[in-house]
């Protein structure tokens, strides 16, 4: 499916609940996200931010409620080929080189706007092409997992704490990449403890600590 900027896409959640070990993390959660929008999830540790992201990715089943992608249930639509997830686990093999890792991600989805070389340039990892990932620092690994977003064609980015172990300059860089994605018609759902500087973007904020 073509995800050109002109095309309208939306993700809508209706009456979502998540119960974990008899504890209600959130219930009756509604939101609607459209092109050019960012959804920022806030809240204390353990209030269900990551659980919500994992529900969006389909790793967890929600306890109630439903997701609509372009007004269709996510399970009936092409939602999963339109979204990318960067979570606590990098999803990167440390015994493979930077290039080998990115080629693998590319094989698993459609090619996006940037080539592998351009993406590495963007996240300031150019020249590390043939280094094994185990020789990279934590922040560099994080940049690599974000480079994966650039080489694949996904309209929704789901990011769990994207700024972990990244330096100040890196944070600016990621913010500019996020800005570019949103300006191009994409959507982002993220959790962060860091104050976002996405002035021009349309940011919705949900505080999960008060959702029950």
């Amino acid at each position, binding site marked *: 499916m073509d995800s050109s900027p002109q095309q309208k896409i939306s993700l809508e959640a209706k009456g979502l609940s998540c119960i974990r070990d008899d504890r209600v993390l959130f219930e009756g959660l509604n939101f609607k996200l459209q092109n050019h929008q960012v959804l920022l999830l806030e809240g204390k540790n353990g209030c269900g931010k990551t659980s919500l992201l994992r529900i969006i*990715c389909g*790793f967890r*089943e929600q306890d109630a409620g439903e997701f609509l992608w372009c007004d269709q249930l996510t399970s009936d639509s092409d939602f999963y080929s339109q979204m990318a997830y960067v*979570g606590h686990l990098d999803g990167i*093999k440390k*015994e*493979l080189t930077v290039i080998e890792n990115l080629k693998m991600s590319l094989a*698993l989805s459609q090619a996006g706007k940037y080539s592998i070389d351009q993406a590495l340039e963007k996240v300031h990892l150019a020249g590390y092409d043939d280094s094994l990932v185990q020789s990279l620092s934590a922040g560099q690994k994080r940049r690599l997992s974000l480079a994966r977003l650039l080489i694949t064609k996904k309209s929704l980015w789901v990011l769990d704490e994207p700024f972990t172990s990244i330096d100040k300059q890196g944070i600016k860089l990621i913010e500019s990449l996020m800005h570019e994605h949103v300006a191009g018609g994409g959507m982002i759902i993220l959790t962060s403890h860091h104050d976002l500087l996405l002035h021009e973007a349309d940011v919705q904020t949900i505080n999960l600590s008060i959702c029950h």
Partner: protein
Amino acid sequence: MSLTNAFFAVIRRDLILAFRRRAEVANPVFFFILIVTLFPLGIGAQPKLLQAMAPGVIWVSALLAVMLSLDSLFRSDFDDGSLEQMLLSSHPLTVLVFAKIVAHWLVTGLPLLFVAPLLAIFLGLPEQALGTLLLTLVLATPVLSLIGSIGVSLTVGLRRGGMILSLLVLPLYVPVLIFASNAVEMAGNGLAVDAQINILISIFFMSVVLAPLPAAAALKMSIS
């Protein structure tokens, strides 16, 4: 990218990984060689007895060697989040899981094919049974990887799944063991083994078709 590309990309990736973790990957083959070579030492100088036991010894060792390697099938992908990314891929997980199983067989099953004939001669297995031994290994070691994949995908989320894994998988391995070692034994006595080989072929095709589906479903459960 197309599905075939993804399929071969997964196989290639797993083979590169296996090559970079040579020591870990060579473990099952060494284990196989070790058990088989220890038998003559334990039993003593009784060539007749060894010859009679050879098919069973080789097959039981092969089975244990494959079982030893099963945990590595999904473990590292589960731990570093690669499995999550595969789940989110636009390609069906069943195909990607099948690719991983193929790679697992290439790395653990295939080397057994090269070592087993040497060990068979070492145990005094009659020459006429060597062809059948190879044929049973070709047909049945993939089955061990395939059936094993269901067990591993169910237990990969557990911290100590090793014991449960063997309880789950061993009963399913028993038919393979019975038919394969029986075929080798009969071939050694110069008897026809068509029936056993046919049954192994049918088990092989059944597990190729049926194993990746539940394995993929179980992986989705393990991830959540």
